[in-house]
């Protein structure tokens, strides 16, 4: 009882009130206020259809994807404390992360998180298709989702190179060699041999899309730096922006789908 009295007193202080502008969310007004008044929660509608909160319907895969994205951002930033994207140090730094850096599972969290994000993204799309939720008025948001899916894979793919071990460079080599085969743009792709004016080769191994991707003819230090920037700055920014669009459109397109 005393504790309760103290709690009540705390709730009446100016400090508490300045932070929480409403009472405990146990009535309609406060429940609305808490969602509408909180910058993080106001992504949600104040009320939504019951099916929208049922795991059996939503599987929560979209939400998890977003959360894992946040977790990856945090762990990724922390990893940047100890990782240098150079041919000299990259591999040794990865060893260091396991051998002597405190909290030796940071890299694991990041890597398994990345895999999880791919999985949750796929499952999210699977669910959306199964419930036909791409249908009007949500066609555009489905498209945004597909692009996010591609970006998720790219994020994971660019991160795959950073440990700078055999697994990394050869997986990226295999992947980058596909870019080589892009029709007309890769020097090993169909049509590339046509793009030639006399001795002047328009599409060769030193100016095609693979070269652009790797900043070289093979996976080397420039590619490492490039993938690092793509992985840590460029793609996350794009993904973040598109996530905002995606969420906005979920709300604007009528919330989580339900039978019309």
């Amino acid at each position: 009882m005393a504790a309760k009295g103290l709690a009540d007193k705390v709730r009446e202080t100016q400090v508490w009130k300045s932070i929480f502008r409403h009472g405990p969310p146990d009535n309609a007004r406060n429940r609305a206020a808490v969602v509408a008044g909180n910058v993080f929660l106001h992504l949600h509608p104040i009320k939504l259809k019951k099916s929208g909160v049922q795991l059996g319907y939503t599987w929560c895969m979209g939400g998890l994807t977003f959360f894992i994205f946040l977790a990856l951002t945090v762990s990724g930033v922390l990893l940047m404390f100890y990782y240098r994207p150079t041919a000299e140090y990259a591999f040794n730094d990865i060893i260091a992360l396991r051998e002597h850096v405190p909290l030796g599972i940071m890299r694991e969290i990041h890597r398994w998180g990345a895999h999880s994000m791919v999985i949750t993204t796929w499952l999210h799309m699977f669910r959306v298709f199964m419930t036909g939720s791409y249908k009007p008025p949500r066609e555009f948001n489905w498209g945004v989702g597909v692009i996010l899916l591609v970006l998720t894979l790219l994020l994971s793919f660019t991160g795959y190179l950073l440990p700078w071990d055999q697994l990394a460079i050869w997986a990226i080599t295999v992947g980058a060699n596909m870019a080589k085969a892009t029709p007309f743009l890769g020097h090993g792709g169909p049509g590339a041999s046509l793009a030639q004016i006399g001795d002047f080769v328009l599409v060769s191994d030193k100016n095609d899309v693979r070269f652009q991707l790797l900043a070289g003819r093979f996976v080397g230090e420039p590619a490492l730096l490039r993938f690092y920037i793509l992985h840590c700055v460029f793609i996350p920014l794009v993904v973040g922006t598109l996530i905002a669009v995606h969420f906005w459109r979920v709300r604007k397109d009528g919330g989580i789908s339900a039978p019309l």
Partner: protein
Amino acid sequence: MRELINYFADPIRSFPAVCVLFYLMMKYYRVVGTKKFLYWSLAFIIPVSIWFAIDPNFFTILILPDNIPIIILLVAVGFLQWFTFYKAAQNDARIEEGLGPLEGTPENREKVWSWPNLVYTELFMIIAATSFLIVWAIVFKAPLEEPANPTWAPNPAKAPWYFLGLQEMLVYFDPWMAGVVLPGVVVVGLIAIPYIDTNPKGNGYYTIAERPVAMWGFLFGWLVLWLYLIIVGTFLRGPNWTFYGPFEYWDYHKVVAEYNVNLSEFMWIKWLNTAMPENMFVREILGIILSLGYIIILPPLSAATKYGKMMIEKVGMIRYYIFIVLLLLMMSLPIKMVLRWLFSLKYIIALPELELNL
């Protein structure tokens, strides 16, 4: 027994088997979508998986840290696929009775407060996911191999697991198809889905009966052409990208008899029994005709059929053609696979001069 499974795991045999299984599953989804089926299949799958895992060769591949996500994915997809069937079967039964889907019942359409219903659910999922991730991270160490060495490629050199489906396609297609065109088509096709699928039913609830074409098409691509190929690429491809049964030791020296022949070689040498023509386009004429025919002539032809007419009526000309072209492109993969297995066909069009092999 293990020998038998090794034998049947080869894509030549397992791909048709998977297709048949897929057909049965879709056809009898109401049987699949019952709890009884779930229990029976669990009773079957769990001991079988354990038996699989006991095998040392399979176990070594299974617990490669980078393969764990695939296992998680498979378990998740297995359950969720059953779950959609379960829900869809319920809904479809209700719809037949004229009751409408479960999601549409008044109590499920009731509006509820985000706080605490939604917010708590999310918080729980966050906690659960974080815990799961941490446990996973503690138990399984991230892989780290030898330092990057540009002069020596490991065998097999595999892409990340989520791209292994694509890498498996490389067996059947040249990189420009498997690595660029087909993935591009997948992305474009996915984006195009809402615009092609004009069926107003099935929006916001699980159903199969009300949107059979969409379901059959999507699930075939997702389960058979994507996930199945990832499984093959991960578990059944070893050094030199050679096929290894699940219980087979990855012997680096395994050699498989494989010699593939181009369509043009079939045509000129085997059928016409003459020398190959000098001009490359003449040489490849049959392949070119077939390919163009496949992508240009088949759509109008199909439009003339009964189904074609029916669909055009529903969705219009443009949507129909886009749909058909996408479908044909998707089906080109299984077609090529089957041709490879049956006739050892290497390329339908082989124009290495232009890097254009199909």
